[in-house]
């Protein structure tokens, strides 16, 4: 059983980009937009954060600029979707295609390299934790000694709960998803709240992406590898509740950490492991629509 603690410890790191992306996705989802662009936004955040860190020499500045670039992309996505009245699914696909094209094109333009770019000048992420806390058995082993991103994601989770359920802004975002006409009748513009929630998803995806590359000290093409799609599943499995996201993201983090560990031992082809999130999402979708249909049949 001695391997369970390291698996749990790495699960906490692995789940963090998922948690952050799904948190932003929760805002767009509650405002009534299916945001499939999380994947592209994460990729944008991952690429821009490490590039800016490389050029500014500071992780904090690099991450902030990376988040800025990601929010810019989400603002483009939002204005094309809302102001030009486009189908959000197609603009989301466009965002993903754009991010995967742009990162390769820029990587080629800046480093004459379309593959893995390793940044030797970027130190590994500092790990936080005090001796006193780390000495607590099990809890200390699992939850202490992570990078600032991990703790920041927990603070942001509490903050999103507060914003969504305790502030007028949050009420209006949720009202936008439930009944946009009601909001219009009260003289408010649903599209403004949708725009804001797209920006929020740009912010959290930028942060989550930054963790992916800064943790590695390198940019790998398509480093997100479906994480944005899993973040969507996390939203559905988490029942669209902030703390539900935490549990769902942890389950995926654990599965990922376990498969990393087991890949050698169990000898499962990596293609199958990569396919798991899609199959899982499919089953979750079908399950929830069967549930919705049964529920609808009972109510009517």
């Amino acid at each position, binding site marked *: 059983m001695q391997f369970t603690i390291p698996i749990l410890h790495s699960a906490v790191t692995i789940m963090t980009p998922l948690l952050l992306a799904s948190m932003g996705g929760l805002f767009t989802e509650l405002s009534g937009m299916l945001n499939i662009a999380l994947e592209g936004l994460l990729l944008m955040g991952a690429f821009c954060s490490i590039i800016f860190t490389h050029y500014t020499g500071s992780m904090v500045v690099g991450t902030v600029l990376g988040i800025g670039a990601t929010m810019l992309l989400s603002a483009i996505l939002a204005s094309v979707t809302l102001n030009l009245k486009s189908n959000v699914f197609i*603009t989301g696909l*466009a965002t993903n295609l754009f991010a995967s094209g742009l990162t390769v094109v820029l990587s080629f333009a800046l480093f004459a390299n379309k593959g893995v770019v390793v940044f030797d000048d970027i130190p590994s992420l500092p790990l936080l934790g005090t001796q006193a806390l780390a000495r607590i058995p099990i809890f200390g082993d699992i939850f202490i000694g992570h990078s600032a991103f991990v703790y920041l994601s927990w603070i942001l989770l509490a903050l999103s709960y507060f914003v969504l359920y305790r502030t007028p802004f949050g009420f209006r975002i949720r009202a936008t998803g439930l009944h946009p006409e009601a909001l219009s009748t009260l003289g408010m513009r649903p599209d403004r709240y949708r725009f804001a929630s797209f920006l929020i998803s740009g912010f959290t995806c930028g942060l989550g992406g930054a963790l992916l590359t800064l943790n590695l000290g390198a940019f790998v093409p398509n480093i997100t590898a479906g994480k944005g*799609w899993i973040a969507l599943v996390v939203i559905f499995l988490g029942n669209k509740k902030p703390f539900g996201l935490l549990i769902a993201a942890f389950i995926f983090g654990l599965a990922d950490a376990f498969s990393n560990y087991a890949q050698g031992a169990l000898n499962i082809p990596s293609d199958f492991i990569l396919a798991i999130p899609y199959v899982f999402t*499919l089953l979750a979708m*079908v399950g929830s629509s069967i549930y919705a249909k049964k529920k609808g049949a009972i109510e009517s």
Partner: protein
Amino acid sequence: MLENRNQTNRKLLPSLRSSGGILLIVLIALCGVLVLSLLLSKTPARTLRYFFLGPLQNTYYFGNMLNSATPLIFGGLGVSLAMRSGNFNLGGEGQIYGGALVTTLFAIYLAPLGVLGAIMALFIGASFAGALAGLSGFLRMKWNTSELITSFLISNAVVLVMNYLISGPFMDPSTSLIATRKIPDSFRLSALLPPSSLSTALFFALVAVVAVHAYLYKTKSGYELRMTGLNSRFAKYGGINTRKFIVLPMFLSGFLYGLGGGFAIYGTYFSAIKEFSAGMGWNGLAVALIAKSKPSAVIPAALFFAYIEAGARSAMLHSDVTFEIAAIVQSIVFFLISSEVLLTLFEKKRRNP
């Protein structure tokens, strides 16, 4: 004489107006090429020249451009058919790839049967792709699960499984490529415009355009399909079995994508190479969106997309930019192509004169 001209004008102008939005989007995308070249290239004039003129420069590039338009025509027809019925098929990637692999495997297995074997293999491969898309239609019919998302998810998983099959159990160890064994020589379509890779598959694509057009506009089933897409409730009250037109169009849509994959094998690749079809499915979707789901408009739309890719490839070979600029230009088209504002920009004037 004068009256005659007025009549053509009356017909021509609205159709120009309704495609004005599309032309604007195409123009914006081409401006994107300009901006990208100026930003990224040290020799922007050279990049632009090869991007825009490269594909038309000689028969080799021109033939290759027509050849890469061929699967896009099949894909564009597939998506159009689904969209006409009010369904969305986003699984083109997996359907082309899966259809191609299944066709290849059966072509090798059915080699002794000759032409009959070739047709059977093509049919089986396309039916496999059709079943993948049909499954999404079935899920929507049964439980109202969004076929948009399920077709995408199924396709992503299928692509990975196909990758595994090609690089694992069915890999041909005698080549350095990650690919299956080659199909028999007798199954290969003859080349047009050598040394380019254009083959007679293009003619089959054009036949498919005529066939889909005839199905949609000249048959009862095609009429019912279009009615279901226009107004499902109205169609239902009119006595049309609308449930059928969720599964059938999705199946046909996947079938056409699968044919695109199969013909790409017969005409160009001759064996299923790992990820050979990456991007074809998405481009097929974009083609259908540009063509506004009209079968006849699929041909110019497919040529436009093939042109962007051929241009990017030629600019990469002769200048200092990378091929992925094509993805950025295509994403610009994707961003704007469903915009109600842009698409109706020129139509509004007609409504409020």
